[in-house]
């Protein structure tokens, strides 16, 4: 019996590892190979390292690496400056409508950054909406380094806001209040107790923002192109898609990018584990009772301002464009109508089929990634032997450090090998592979956490009371982890359906996804239909998962007395 179980879990482990190697490891191996052997694309290991010196010495490599670093640092700093005061107010004072502000600050996550950036371009470009409404022209600001930093910070600051407010609140209730009793004023309590204790959580979120920033493609591509500002991601894209195509250079830039991201993630892990005071969690915290007093008005104004600028402004610009008959017609009632939405329905420009393709691919990717997540979680948390576990763990988390453009490069290099008998290249399958690889860390993280929360004694109890291993998994484990797995799959669906850069690079000829469609429409100047698709996509990919999740929560709550953990 025990032997059979070990054999079963051995087979599971082997299969999972093999799948991970194909989906995750091989693309990265080929990037490394390409960086070393310039002719690997022809299946040849000749002239090793010949390219290396030239690329490393090239001006592009130095400037683009430096630009990525500068951009990352700038966005981290700006996001922190915006998010920290908001988080402190939210956590330490009784803020009217606190939950609504939280919800509003989730919205930037719902808008894909490239779409938000297009919204900013439409608003701030010369003769854009801002100039039409107020006469102010901020184009000079938008198409500059501070402009890119600002637009990206508007997307990333919620990461810091949520991390900091959660940890400020836990610390405030448990540790900071105590220092007040022992004579510390509010300022000293914040500097001496709250801030040092929150440092690990906040620093971890800063590093996450850094990684998000250097991996982002859409925003630097749209804005940077106007003033020749290239970062590693856009540099890789250029080497891949502009003549003369330079695969070795793309591979080396990718390795530099992976190294930067890995450093950020590694650093984040170290901070999170080394200085974790375990201040979050534990006893339930009391709601803050401190009144804002005369600062109520200014605080609310600040929240409203940030919420409007970060979400309202780009969303309104997108909506206005979607509703405009012509862009040149401007913001006039006579220029407004539903023509663009009607045009989508006729599918004359391929909008409808792009949406169909993306939603279909998102669904398939979600299902594949979900099953992958379960297999990996099962092997890493329930598998018998320790061998292979850390390898699987590392492989599953590797894509964290790899932006879409790098994954796309790896897939191109791997699946164009002349020796391959069959290849998914130039089919929709390559997009599924890309999405699963890029997004795999999410379902793995959610599912592993869910598995870890299920106390093994729950399964033991089922076994003792007569259930076989399979039935135990089916009746106890699966129902308990299902909500988390489903939530992770929804996330994969949402992000995959609007993915941009990998789709641009590996989509089969003649196939459009939502991302590539919107992108091309914008490039070709027929912006209205593109923005209408963007708007419908935001609505669909926000409301549908939210609806499913809240329905799920209701079910969970009604059944929670039975399955209380």
């Amino acid at each position: 019996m025990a032997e059979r179980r070990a054999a079963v879990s051995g087979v599971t482990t082997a299969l999972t590892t093999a799948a991970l190697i194909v989906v995750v490891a091989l693309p990265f191996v080929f990037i490394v190979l390409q960086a070393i052997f310039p002719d690997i694309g022809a299946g040849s290991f000749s002239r090793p390292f010949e390219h290396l010196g030239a690329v490393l010495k090239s001006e592009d490599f130095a400037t683009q690496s430096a630009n990525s670093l500068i951009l990352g640092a700038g966005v981290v700093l700006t996001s922190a400056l915006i998010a920290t005061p908001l988080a402190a107010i939210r956590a330490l004072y009784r803020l009217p409508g606190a939950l609504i502000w939280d919800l509003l600050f989730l919205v930037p996550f719902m808008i894909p950054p490239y779409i938000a950036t297009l919204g900013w371009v439409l608003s701030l470009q010369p003769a854009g909406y801002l100039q039409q409404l107020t006469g102010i022209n901020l184009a000079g600001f938008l198409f500059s380094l501070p402009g890119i930093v600002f637009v990206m910070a508007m997307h990333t600051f919620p990461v810091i806001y949520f991390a900091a407010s959660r940890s400020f609140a836990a610390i405030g209730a448990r540790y900071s209040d105590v220092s007040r009793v022992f004579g510390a004023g509010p300022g000293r309590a914040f500097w001496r107790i709250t801030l040092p204790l929150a440092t690990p959580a906040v620093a971890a979120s800063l590093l996450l923002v850094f990684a998000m920033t250097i991996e982002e493609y859409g925003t630097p591509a749209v804005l940077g192109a106007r003033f020749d500002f290239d970062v590693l991601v856009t540099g890789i894209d250029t080497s891949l898609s502009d003549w003369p195509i330079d695969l070795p250079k793309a591979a080396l830039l990718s390795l530099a990018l992976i190294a930067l991201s890995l450093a950020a993630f590694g650093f984040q892990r170290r901070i999170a584990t080394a200085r974790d005071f375990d201040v979050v969690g534990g006893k339930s915290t009391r709601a803050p009772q401190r009144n804002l007093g005369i600062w109520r008005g200014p605080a609310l104004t600040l929240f409203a301002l940030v919420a409007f600028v970060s979400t309202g402004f780009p969303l309104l610009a997108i909506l206005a464009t979607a509703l405009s008959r012509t862009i040149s017609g401007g913001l006039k009632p006579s220029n407004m109508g539903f023509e663009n939405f009607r045009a989508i329905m006729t599918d004359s420009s391929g909008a409808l089929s792009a949406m169909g393709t993306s939603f279909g691919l998102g669904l398939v990717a979600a299902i594949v990634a979900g099953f992958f997540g379960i297999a990996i979680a099962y092997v890493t948390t329930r598998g018998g032997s320790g061998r292979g576990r850390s390898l699987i763990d590392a492989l599953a988390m590797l894509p964290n450090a790899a932006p879409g453009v790098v994954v796309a490069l790896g897939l191109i290099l791997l699946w164009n090998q002349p020796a391959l008998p069959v290849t998914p290249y130039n089919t929709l399958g390559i997009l599924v592979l890309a999405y699963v690889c890029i997004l795999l860390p999410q379902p793995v993280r959610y599912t592993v956490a869910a598995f870890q929360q299920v106390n093994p004694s729950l399964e033991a109890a089922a076994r003792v009371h007569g259930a076989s291993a399979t039935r135990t998994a089916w009746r106890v484990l699966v129902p308990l982890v299902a909500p988390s797995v489903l939530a992770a799959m929804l996330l994969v669906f949402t992000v995959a359906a609007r993915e941009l850069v990998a789709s641009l690079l590996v989509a089969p000829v003649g196939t459009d996804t939502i991302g590539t469609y919107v992108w091309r429409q914008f490039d070709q100047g027929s912006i209205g239909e593109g923005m209408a698709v963007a708007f419908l996509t935001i609505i669909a990919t926000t409301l549908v998962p939210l609806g499913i999740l809240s329905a799920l929560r209701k079910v969970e709550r009604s059944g929670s007395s039975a399955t209380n953990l």
Partner: protein
Amino acid sequence: MLANLKETNLRAAHEDAALAVRSLRLSYGPAEILRGIDLSLAPGKALALLGPSGSGKTTLLRVLAGLEAPSAGEVFVHGGCVAAPARGLFLPPERRKLGMVFQDYALWPHMSVAQNVGFPLEMQGIGRAERLSRAQAALARVGLEAMGDRRPSALSGGQQQRVGIARAIASGARTVLFDEPLSNLDRELRESMVDEIAGLVADLGLTALYVTHDHSEAFSLADEVAILREGQIVQAAPPEILVDRPANPWVAEFLRLGAVLSADAARAVLRDLAVPQMAKAVLLPRRDIRICGTSETSLRARVLRCLFRGDDYQLALALPDGSEIQISAASRIAPGQEIGLHIAPEALRWFDIPKRP
């Protein structure tokens, strides 16, 4: 005129007290947590606050400390009014000069033990050298002089709470609030630490407000015990008086003083007894109940359980009306057996408040 005079007297009383609250109310939204509390604690005295979970004990302490603002009423600390919403007065916690010991210790994890204890002194602007020596002295008082350089997380629960106590006394605060300081410790440690805290409070002449779940802890520490129920004080008295003359049937039951019967049940159970006119309920104090033969008494009981407790046996008995009572016995009596009980009529406590069903 008369009301005015009473007002002045009350105010004078509050100005003498180390801690006092008057008509204190606190609501969270529609829920009223504290519902008109009057309390006063003279300097150097120890008051225990006893009450069921959720009755508002922690909330009351937090109001006194200034971590929570009352909705109405007044709070006095060391004779001065520190909170009075009617007058818009609210002194923040750091200016109330109190010490406080927390149920979850609340030691700052990023500071060493000595830094934790020295923090209140640092806030008073005391220089490093003096701070260290005073922190060290406070640690010595709780037997932890060797632990100053450690992190709080490297100490056991009991040691951590000793650090918490050292921190509360290091500042030289005359008044210390204790919020169930021992409830996270196991029983043996709890008993020895109650002794230590009592000794410390007496040695330093501290005024102590001590919240606890545990009756014996309250009785052994306090000069006076206040019983809190759903945000109101139902009785405040020295422990002996509390046990002797509980104010109502609920207090008697909460303190597990014995069986509380309604007047009708009492008539049926104690057949040969005259029930006073206004009486609605009666307490049969368990310390006054003796076991006797069934022929000697009209009061019968059936043994439900018999537990050996080392020194004696604890009997759980069912009275004829169905209510349960626990008494101690010198020898084992088998469950199911009928026994007779004797209680002197003058030991009975009559209440004119009905026992709640």
